[in-house]
């Protein structure tokens, strides 16, 4: 598989996404806030003690959203990666992380990304090589954030926790052994 970050960059050769038991697939469809989307690609992060599938979905308007999935837990991000300029040393598990504008979240985990795989078409993505740290934080109200920390650069994606039922997913993989 060949991907490019920028047209001017040398193409990056990456390996196939490993098999897992995610029931989403490229071509799965669903709804988020009454807007239909279709999944067109995936970024799979292999973390030290977890994994995160960032499924890239597009609305009919062409606008992109990310659906992060891990062990049946879903988060939807409609924003793009932003640079995080607050104190990065506060990005710790169990600590309060301030996002500005009186929004504070609880750090849930810090995991090193050991592997990164891509498939299909993906929207704007910030990091293409493993070795960065991923921090997940949430509020009880359901707002959530994913941070990536690579050297001195911290990026943030903000969104909300949802259930798979909320997304009204169709064309998903049917694992009949669990029925």
């Amino acid at each position, binding site marked *: 598989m060949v991907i490019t970050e920028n047209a001017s960059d040398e193409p990056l050769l990456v390996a196939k996404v*490993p*098999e*897992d*038991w*995610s*029931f989403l697939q490229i071509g799965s469809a669903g709804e988020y806030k009454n807007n239909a989307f279709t999944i067109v690609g995936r970024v*799979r992060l*292999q973390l*030290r*003690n*977890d*994994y995160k599938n960032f499924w890239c979905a597009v609305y009919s308007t062409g606008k992109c959203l990310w659906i992060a999935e*891990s*062990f*049946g*837990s879903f988060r939807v991000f409609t924003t793009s990666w932003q640079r995080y300029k607050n104190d990065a040393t506060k990005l*710790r*598990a*169990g600590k309060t992380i301030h996002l500005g504008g009186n929004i504070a979240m*609880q*750090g*849930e*985990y*810090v*995991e*090193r990304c*050991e*592997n990164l795989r891509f498939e299909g078409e993906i929207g704007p993505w910030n990091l293409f090589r493993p070795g960065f740290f991923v921090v997940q934080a*949430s509020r*009880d109200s359901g707002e959530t954030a994913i941070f990536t920390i690579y050297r001195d650069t911290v990026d943030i994606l903000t969104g909300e*926790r949802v259930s*798979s039922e909320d997304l009204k997913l169709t064309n998903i993989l049917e*694992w009949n*052994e*669990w*029925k």
Partner: protein
Amino acid sequence: MSGNNYTVTCNHCNTVNTVRGKAMTLAMTCSGCGYYMRLGDWNNAASVFKKKVEPAIPIGAKGRFDGIVYEVMGFVVKRETKYHYSWREYLLFNPYKGYAFLAEYEGNWNFVWPIEENPRTVGNKSDHDLMFEQEHYRIYQKYHAEVQYAVGEFFFDVVDLTETTYNHEYIAPPFFLTVEKSDDSVLWCKGEYCSPKEIAAAFNIPKSKLPAKEGRGYTQPISTSFNSQSLISLTVILFFVAVLAQFYFSFVATEDVVFNEDFDQKALSDQKFLVSHPFDISGSTGNLEFDIYAPLTNDWFYADFSLINEQTGVEYNFSKDVEYYSGVEDGYSWSEGSTHGKALISQIPGGRYHINVYPEFSTTYQTFSIKVTRNVSMLVNFWVTLLLLMAFPIFYLIRRQMIEVKRWSESDYSPYVTE
């Protein structure tokens, strides 16, 4: 899991292991030699456990909880590092719901699943009381643990993660909350007590295959079909009903004196009993109160009484002892007993009656009187009702308290121990 070509070769014995969890599995034991293998490129260190433990529920078994089918992926024996007690955990997996755990200690089971909301702390001791989904949870234990044995597959390095996390458990039976904290992660889970019968039914295995249950589980609920609050509310309502009923019966009680006669030993002559004048009782059935009066001081009177219905010949028998003693001792006056003795007979039909009295007199007093009152208010009924009403709630609350004290006896944070 079918259709799986995901394999890993053991570095120790070269056995090719099928990885059921595919890329999700980050650690597993070799099916050939039992070595614990970390599957990440970043850490492939292997280790071996000293002692093998057979899981009660086999790896690969499927069980249904709340309609969701989970597969047993891994089994681990953990030991608490301070008090050295051990328990067993089963890692369960469902691709649509993620992972969950079954924890077993002394035959008591809990089903445990991750939660994404952070429980809210309450009270002064910030980490001792939590509120979650309208339930109040109290801290039960804080501990470090280590893995003694593992078999199967894990979605995380269960050995390292167990040894690097500090755990807090909070209970609100049948539920509990647990948080595993390390520098890198905070994982909240909620658990619920499951009976061995439910576990056996979930996996369709005989209950006899499961470890024998010893004692009451620390999250095991007190099995009743009601809660304490509803029992107390019901008791209060019934108490007021009983009070109202007593007021009603006191109000309708006519308390008619139907007979009053004095008796003297002289009337006995050579007879063994005295016969009263006949008297009439009107109306249908009702009670009769007999007031036996003997003008005694430091003496006694005893008699057997027979109330006889002159129309039917039916007898109602009772006996009464009247004693009264008094005096002055060391400057203090005292008394004991009474010159009156009362007896109550219920459900006496109307009709003409007389009373036969078989008295036993002392040497000093030879007279007594009988007064019979119809339809008296019976306070004893009220007290008996109240006693019966209170018996079950009191029994229940005492039993509940004893169970709670026992439940917390193994905790370092028992609310029943004052420092």
